[in-house]
C-alpha cells in the first residue's frame, strides 16, 4: 500500500495541495508498514517533513523517483519507459507538432510586431485570451478527474506527467508573450506542442484510453488543417 500511495505523488500536482491535505496525506503514508533500508529512510524523511513548519513540496514530489524500489512492481521499468518516451519526443518534427492551437498562437504573435497598431494588438489580445482560457479550462477539467488507481500504469503515468509538463510549457509561452519575448514564446509553445504530439503517439502505442483526454489539446475540428482524404 505504501507503494500505491507513493504513486499518487506522481499523479497529483503536489504544489497545488492545500497544506492540511498534504500533511494528512503524509500521515496516511506513516500508517503504512515500512520494511527495509529505503523504506525506513523514507519514513525518516516523512517524519521530518511533518515536524517542519513549512513543507518542502519539491522534495516530496521527488520521492517516488527517489524511492523507485518502493513503488509497485509495475514501476520497475519506469526509467526505461521514460527513455522510450524521450525517444518518441526526439522524433517529433516541427511539422508534426503543428496544431490548430499553435497556428492560432503564431498568428496572434504576428499581430504583435513592432509596427502593429492598437487594433491589431486588440485582435491578438482577444485571440491569446481565448487560447489561454482554453488551456486552463482543459487543465482544470483534467485535474478534476485524476487517474484512479485502476488507471495507473507505467504508460499512463508517463503520459500524465508529460501532460502537465506540456501545459507548463504553454503557460510559460503566454508569460513570455506578455513580457514581449515573442520569439522565445513561440519556441516554448512549439515545445509544448511537441510534447502534446509525443503524448498522443505514446498513447496510441500503449493503447491508453486515458490519453483520449489529451487529444483535444491538439485537435480542434473547426480549424485543424488536415490531409486526410474525404
Amino acid at each position, binding site marked *: 500500500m505504501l507503494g500505491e500511495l507513493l504513486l499518487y505523488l506522481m499523479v497529483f500536482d503536489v504544489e497545488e495541495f492545500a497544506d492540511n491535505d498534504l500533511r494528512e496525506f503524509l500521515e496516511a503514508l506513516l500508517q503504512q508498514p515500512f520494511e527495509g533500508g529505503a523504506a525506513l529512510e523514507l519514513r525518516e524523511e516523512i517524519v521530518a517533513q511533518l515536524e517542519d513548519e513549512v513543507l518542502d513540496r519539491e522534495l516530496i514530489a521527488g520521492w517516488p523517483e527517489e524511492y523507485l524500489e518502493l513503488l509497485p512492481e509495475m514501476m520497475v521499468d519506469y526509467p526505461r519507459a521514460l527513455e522510450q518516451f524521450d525517444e518518441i519526443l526526439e522524433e517529433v518534427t516541427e511539422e508534426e507538432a503543428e496544431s490548430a492551437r499553435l497556428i492560432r498562437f503564431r498568428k496572434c504573435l504576428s499581430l504583435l510586431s513592432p509596427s502593429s497598431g492598437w487594433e491589431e494588438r*486588440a485582435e491578438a489580445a482577444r*485571440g491569446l*485570451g*481565448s*487560447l489561454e*482560457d482554453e488551456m*486552463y479550462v482543459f487543465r482544470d477539467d483534467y485535474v478534476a478527474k485524476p487517474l484512479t488507481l485502476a488507471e495507473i500504469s507505467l504508460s499512463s503515468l508517463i503520459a500524465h506527467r508529460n501532460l502537465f509538463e506540456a501545459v507548463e510549457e504553454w503557460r510559460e509561452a503566454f508569460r513570455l*508573450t506578455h513580457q*514581449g519575448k515573442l520569439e522565445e514564446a513561440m519556441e516554448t509553445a512549439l515545445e509544448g506542442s511537441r510534447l502534446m504530439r509525443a503524448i498522443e503517439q505514446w498513447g496510441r502505442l500503449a493503447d491508453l484510453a486515458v490519453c483520449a483526454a489529451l487529444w483535444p489539446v491538439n485537435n480542434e475540428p473547426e*480549424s485543424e488543417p488536415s490531409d486526410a482524404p474525404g
Partner: protein
Amino acid sequence: MDSLRLYPDDEQARAEVLSSLELLDTPPEERFDRLCRQAQEVMEAPATYISLIDRERQWFKATVGMGEFKETPRPGTFCDYAIRRSRPTVVLDATSDPLFTKSPYVVGEPHVRFYLGFPLTVRGQRVGTLCSLDFQPRDQVRPEQMERMRALARIAELELAGETPPDGETSPESEPLASFEGHRQEATILAARLPQFSSHCESWSAEMIARALFLFTTQMLESTHGWGGLPLDYGSDTFRAVFGPGLAPEEHATRAAGCALEMQHVLAGLSSTLVQDGLAPLDCGIALATDELVVGQLGANDWARPLVTGRVVGLAERIRDLANPGEILGLESTIRGLGEAALVEGKFRVNLPGYESTAIIYELVGVGDAHLPRR
C-alpha cells in the same frame, strides 16, 4: 490562413444573458457602488469599476475615480481581453505588455498602467468585469488582495444574477424558488453563527468589525452557492441557507454537510490570516437540521425573495446556538440523511422548544473522506 478564426464567436449567447439582466443604461445603484468602494480600499487604487461588456461598448455600472467615463468603445479595452479568460487578468505595467502598450487607454486618457480585472460570470457567460486601475505601474498584487477581490467579484456576480429575469426565461432547475406557488419538500437548513463575535465587537474598531463580517458573509455566500444551496438571510454575525430546492431529494443533507465542512475549512484559513493581522479568529458554529419545509417565493412582483418556512428553521437556529466555535452539530434527521458517510464523534439529547420529543444532536466531524479542520 487569412480566414483563421483566432477566438470563438460566442457573442450571441453572451449578449442574450447580458440583455436579460436589464442593467445596461440603468442608474447607479448603491449595491454596486459599495462594491467598487470596497475594491478601491482593498487595492489602494485610484480607480475601480464594475463594467458590463456590450457588443460594441464597455458600459460602467459603477465607478470610483473614473471621472467622466460612463462608457467607452469596446475594442482596445483591457476588459475585452479579460472577459475572454475565466481567471483574473493582471497587467502590472501596460507600457511593457505588447498586448496593451498601444491601447488608446494607455497612450491616451486615462493613461492606464496597472490593471486588475475579474470576469463576472452569470449563467455561464462572462458579462462584465470588476476592475481596479492605477495610473502608475505596480510590482505585484498581494495574495490577500487577490483573495479579497475574488470575494468581491463573487458578490458582484450574485448581485448581477439577482435581477429578476424576464418572464418565461427561468426554469425550475436554474431558479428553484421562482414559483410564487409554495410547495412542501424535505430540505436541510444550515444555520451558522460567530458565537464570540459580540465580545469581539466591544474591543474592535468599526473598521475591523466591518472587515470581519464582510469576510464571513462573503465566504458563507460563496460556499453556499458552490454546494447548490440558497442563502436565506444574514445578520450581523449569523447566516442561514437552505439546501433542497433544485436538488435531488437524496442530495440535500450531503450537500449541506459538505458546505458546512467547507465553511469551517475556509474560516480556519481566514482566521489564521486575521490572527496574523492582530485580530481574533472568526470561529463559527454551524447547525444542520433536516425536515419538511414549505418553499416558494415571498413578496410582491418587484420585491420577491426566497421563502422557506417550517419548524425546522427555528430548530436549526436553536441547535446553532448550542454549537461551540469550530463545531458542526446535526439534528438526527440530517445524520440519517447522510447515511454511512456521516462521521460523528458524539451525541447528546436536548429539549428544544417546538420539537415534541427530546432531540438527539450529533457532533459531525466529517462526511466520507472530508473532515473538519484540525484545531
